[in-house]
């Protein structure tokens, strides 16, 4: 049995930042377990730029952004294992993992940081009818083939879903010589960042069809075409609006799902909204000493925020290992209503919260000229005007500890969207 203070499951952006932060905040022995052959996670296949504007005030590619954190990890002499799959995490924090060289490993940890990232929603989960030929890829799989292996998965492409990976892949496939015929989006708005719509579609003349979906896939061996249809307000295809597109490839960018199989097995309580763990202000799950950050907690748009969140998780894990759980104080629930789908964290303990504590959340619809409001019990303490909020862009508000401490008999904190 190996022993480490902190075991971090996943060596992507979240795991790397959590590890470095834990070390810099006093934790001594830290081990990062990564299932792929190199550190950096999904960033390794994100060869476009635009990463790090918040963190480093410059535009980096995904691998460059990852390298900055990998360098920090190496400087801090943090241990890591590659090609190592975690099989199980027990309640008493024994991590079972496996790799080619060492076989089956058992590692006793004092704290664990979950940083496993997310996966893409598949064609099957979307239940798109039709044949099941080759040429239907999730956008991230195609991205890996193109950006890491140099293979072109197809020449005439239709993309379903206007999430960021779909938009980025529309541009990438075009640059590599494929013809992207159309990007279709089920919703009446895009789930991607505005800058990606401009830079990846508009700049290349690729049409974006909102309120459209794929209703049939043609081709028995390889995709020969797909049928798009317009959908009504209930997202049901409208008969008579079907349109055939000849293509050899269908890429799907229809949402990401946090990879929480290990967390569930461990008994971590999940949010049905995010499909990630429910966490308190310390990003700690209901299993004491088990923390979560990054896309396994909730799906982010920007890696900068993943890094920030992971730094908090790493610091909290280090403090937990050094001082134990800071007791006392009440866990104040954060209630979401009026357009706010969820918050991370879900509860706030005034003893343990930071002087300035960031609450991240997403809205369920597009709101224009609205306010992001925070209430302590019935009293509104934040009323911030926003020209537009959309489900595709994560929002945040900052709570000040002194303000909460000053409030007598605080029962609940409410985050909501208020319209004019």
């Amino acid at each position: 049995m190996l022993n480490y203070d902190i075991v971090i499951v996943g060596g992507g952006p979240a795991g790397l930042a959590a590890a470095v932060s834990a070390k810099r905040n006093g934790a001594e022995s830290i081990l990062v377990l990564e299932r792929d052959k190199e550190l950096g996670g999904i960033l390794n296949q994100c060869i476009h730029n635009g990463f790090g504007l918040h963190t480093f005030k410059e535009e980096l590619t995904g691998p460059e952004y990852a390298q900055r954190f990998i360098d920090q990890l190496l400087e801090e002499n943090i241990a890591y294992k590659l090609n190592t799959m975690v099989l199980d995490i027990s309640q008493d924090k024994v991590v079972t993992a496996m790799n080619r060289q060492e076989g089956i490993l058992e590692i006793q940890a004092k704290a664990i940081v979950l940083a496993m990232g997310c996966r893409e929603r598949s064609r099957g989960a979307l239940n798109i009818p039709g044949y099941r030929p080759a040429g239907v890829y999730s956008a991230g799989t195609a991205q890996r083939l193109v950006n890491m292996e140099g293979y072109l998965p197809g020449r005439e492409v239709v993309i379903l879903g206007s999430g960021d990976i779909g938009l980025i892949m529309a541009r990438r496939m075009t640059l590599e010589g494929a013809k992207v015929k159309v990007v279709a989006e089920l919703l009446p708005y895009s789930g991607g960042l505005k800058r990606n719509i401009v830079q990846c579609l508009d700049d290349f003349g690729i049409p974006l069809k909102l309120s459209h979906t794929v209703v049939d896939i043609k081709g028995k061996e390889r995709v020969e075409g797909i049928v798009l249809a317009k959908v009504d307000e209930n997202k049901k295809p409208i008969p008579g609006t079907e349109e055939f597109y000849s293509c050899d490839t269908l890429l799907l960018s229809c949402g990401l799902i946090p990879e929480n199989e290990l967390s569930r097995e461990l008994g971590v309580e999940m949010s049905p909204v995010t499909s990630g763990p429910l966490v308190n202000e310390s990003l700690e799950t209901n299993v004491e000493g088990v923390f979560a950050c990054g896309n396994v907690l909730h799906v982010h748009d920007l890696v900068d925020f993943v890094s920030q969140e992971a730094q908090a998780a790493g610091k909290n894990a280090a403090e937990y290992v050094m001082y134990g759980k800071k007791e006392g104080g009440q866990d104040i629930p954060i209630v979401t209503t009026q357009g706010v789908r969820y918050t991370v964290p879900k509860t706030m303990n005034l003893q343990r919260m930071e002087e300035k504590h960031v609450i991240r959340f997403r809205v369920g619809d597009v709101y224009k000229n609205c306010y992001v409001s925070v209430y302590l019990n019935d009293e509104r303490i934040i009323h911030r005007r926003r020209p537009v909020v959309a489900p595709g862009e994560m929002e945040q508000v900052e709570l000040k500890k002194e303000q909460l401490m000053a409030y007598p008999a605080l029962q609940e904190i409410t985050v909501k969207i208020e319209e004019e």
Partner: protein
Amino acid sequence: MYDVVIIGAGVSGCASARELSRFDLNICVVEMEEDVCCGTSKANSAIVHAGFDAKPGSLKAKLNVEGSKMMEKLSRELDFHYKKNGSLVVCINESERDNLNKLYERGIQNGVKDLRIIERDELIALEPNISDHAVAALYAPTGAIVCPFGMNIAFAENAAANGVEFRFDTKVIGVEKKENRWVVQTNQGEIETKYVVNAAGVYADVFHNMVSAKKIHITPRRGDYCLLDRSVEGFVTHTIFQLPGQFGKGVLVTPTVHGNTLIGPTAVDIEDKEGTNTTQQGIDELTEKAGNTVKNLPMRQVITSFAGLRAHEDSGEFIIEELEDAKGFIDCAGIASPGLSSAPAIGKMVASIIRDLTDAKERDNFITTRKGILDPKVLSKEEYAALIQEKPEYGNIICRCEMITEGEIMDAIHRPLGAKSLDGVKRRTRAGMGRCQAGFCSPKTMEILARERGVDPSEITKSGGESKLIVGVNKDRL
């Protein structure tokens, strides 16, 4: 010249090949696809019917009950997944109780063991998610579930080990009698044989009608299915059928041997013998009809949907016989449901027909057992560790959803009749069959297939033919 050519490497063809390989015969299986188990045999309900369904006295009833009885022992000999989970035919309307009793009677006539009718209380105790409308059920403890790929591949591998030759990508285009032999014309040339077994699934009528004046007609009857993630394992533990009645035939809800939950099938008669596309209508119908027998169906946990074609012959019966006007041509046609359940008995029957025709002797070196791909998950920690030390590829997880190692994939590729495509690997190992549906593992599996087969990755297909996964390299046409 062969003694026997079997057209079709589905479960009937492979079961027949395996049973025939007991005898001193020179046998060849020809298959138009790149692998075994590519047609009806790969897309069905994956259940072993107890045998109460078929008409008493019919060949279907006889072979179903026989096949069902043989299955458990066979699953041990040939190492495929089988579980006797029991089945329930649920009556959701008091007025239809007569039909339930009739079904019970029919089961007794067919020789199904341990059948009984249970009332709502017992039913709920067995299946907590049963519909609030359920009033009673026919309980068949001998009902079971099986891995259809596992069984088909096991028959084929065992047949191959006993000397049967398999020719893939070999499409039969004609069958002709010449003097005392048959000439099977294929896209890969002619094959001569003394006997032909026509186990061609939905195409069996085509070959039958080439040689016989007594025509048969097979309708591909399409069935859509939805498969749910293992995360809802235990949603039902028995195979749940709806009692056919005024609400139609209903669909079944069943666990699979690997812990998924399967819902299906619909039944739509089509013309196209390759028409395995799912439809929105079909998927909607499944959701609605499954709701008749179970409640709180977690349809959000669907990980894939697929469609299979049953080879429904107009007579509604299995046709397994030597043709009167085409001696030496043996039909194994119309093998619709319960074809999978009957497969072991179908194999026996075909073999006995040919044995009687040829007087072939049993070989004394017949290999009765076959070992499947090693699943390291069944090993103890110590055994697993020792395995990785000896073969490090078993320490490398490729499919993270189903936790399938590189070692298992390499085994699947290198064993007799090994996997050549992603789907071939998937059916043998389950790599790519989980909740991400090969999103993560397909590039890795492609790489392993190319490396182990010594071919360029551009030649790796999803399922043979033109199903290429990549079409070129970046910027190759710029």
